[in-house]
């Protein structure tokens, strides 16, 4: 009988130690949106906030050639698309997901991730995109739009730095 009591005591002790080790079940990763240390979005000079011009302007949803402003934007991303696929017509200072959720420009990666989900996953892991800072500490992330202009996102070709000197050219 004594022996059983001892076993029971140990068992209860173990149970309690378990609760002590894991007091609250940790919330799943999806519950807390992870914050990334990203640089501010690369707006052209003086263009933000968009509402400084768009305030009070009627919303025109028909795709057309823009003539007074933003003529430099040629949409070479998602053929057949239009501004309001990503920009929020009700508040121009924000972006809008396909499901209607509003996204700030500072978190525009969530917008890109609607289609490029695998890339967003890689970006969050640190595989896609450039990281600077500390490998064991605070890492500086870049937004998608720092490298990919969202209206024409393909990375543009650049001039390479000079090749190494060939042995035949060494004097």
């Amino acid at each position, binding site marked *: 009988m004594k022996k059983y009591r001892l076993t029971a005591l140990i068992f209860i002790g173990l149970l309690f130690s378990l609760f002590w080790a894991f007091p609250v079940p940790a919330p799943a990763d999806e519950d807390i949106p992870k914050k990334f240390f990203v640089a501010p979005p690369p707006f052209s000079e003086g263009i933000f906030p968009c509402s400084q011009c768009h305030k009070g302007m009627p919303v025109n949803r028909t795709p057309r050639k823009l003539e007074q402003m933003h003529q430099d934007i040629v949409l070479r991303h998602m053929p057949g698309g239009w501004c309001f696929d990503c920009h929020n017509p009700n508040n121009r200072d924000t972006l809008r997901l396909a499901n209607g959720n509003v996204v700030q420009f500072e978190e525009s990666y969530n917008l890109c991730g609607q289609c490029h989900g695998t890339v967003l996953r890689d970006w969050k892991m640190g595989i896609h995109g*450039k990281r600077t800072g500390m*490998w*064991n500490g605070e890492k500086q992330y870049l937004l998608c739009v720092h490298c990919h202009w969202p209206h024409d996102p393909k990375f543009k070709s650049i001039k*390479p730095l*000079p090749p*190494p000197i060939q042995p035949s050219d060494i004097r």
Partner: protein
Amino acid sequence: MTEKKAEKYIDRRTFLRGAALGLAATALPLDKADASFWEAFFQKYYREMNEEEKKKVIQRLEKEYAQKYKKEIKVGDEKALPGVLFGYGLDLSRCIGCRRCVYACVDENNQSKDPQIHWITVLRFKKGEKFLDLEESEKYYNPSQVPEPGYFYMPVQCQQCENPPCVKACPTQATWKEPDGIVVVDYNWCIGCRYCMAACPYGARRFNWTTPNRKPEEINPKTHYLGNRPRYKGVVEKCTFCIQRTRNGRYPACVEACPVGARKFGNLLDPDSEMRQLIEHKRVFRLKEDLNTNPKFYYFFAYGR
């Protein structure tokens, strides 16, 4: 017969002693006999030095560099961090062959400008050929724009092998693998025999045929004894994963220079590091894996499955 010979000639020991003294007298310039010269001459092996001795050596080196380059150059000797094994990743599906890494490395690590020394070589391959035929690669490519259609690029630098053939080849043990996995060279212990260069299957080591030539104002003053401190004529040097940066928690210079973010760096022992993530989730290969060098430099393809 033997007795006769012994009478006639000087015995072997006396001869050797005399010869050694004579040679020593000619080899050591006595006019240069300041304390620093003799200290350098009798410097101990880095790995056998205690902290006090290391400190002294570093003080001497800093003094020498200050005299030579007329500016303050800090020589660090940060130790390997515990629980850290450095690994490197390079995304071949992203690299555009722009050589920004090559020159960022030169700026950071005080390589000679003339004669030119680069620690990173970017190889260009034709797409669709037998994969990775190194004989068919081109390192002098120079188009007006990269990437060029029909080609891909593969930068090669020291692969920081876990089983480094160069270390085995060194007759003076002037090169060794540190606890955090970086293969380093002690430039004061290297005799310049270049056996390590012959042993390296990746062509990652470089030799200083002349005194490294670099303008004093271009010298990066933040250095490490085993890394980017100014080198001597006749010593071998190589990529050290920017030991002076990474041992202080920073990313290597090439990682921060890459405009497409193809270069990845992290701790292989930390399951949350980007290195572990990419090894676990991407297609990864290592260069010349069949040689059993076990490199810690992983080439991978983030895009296109």
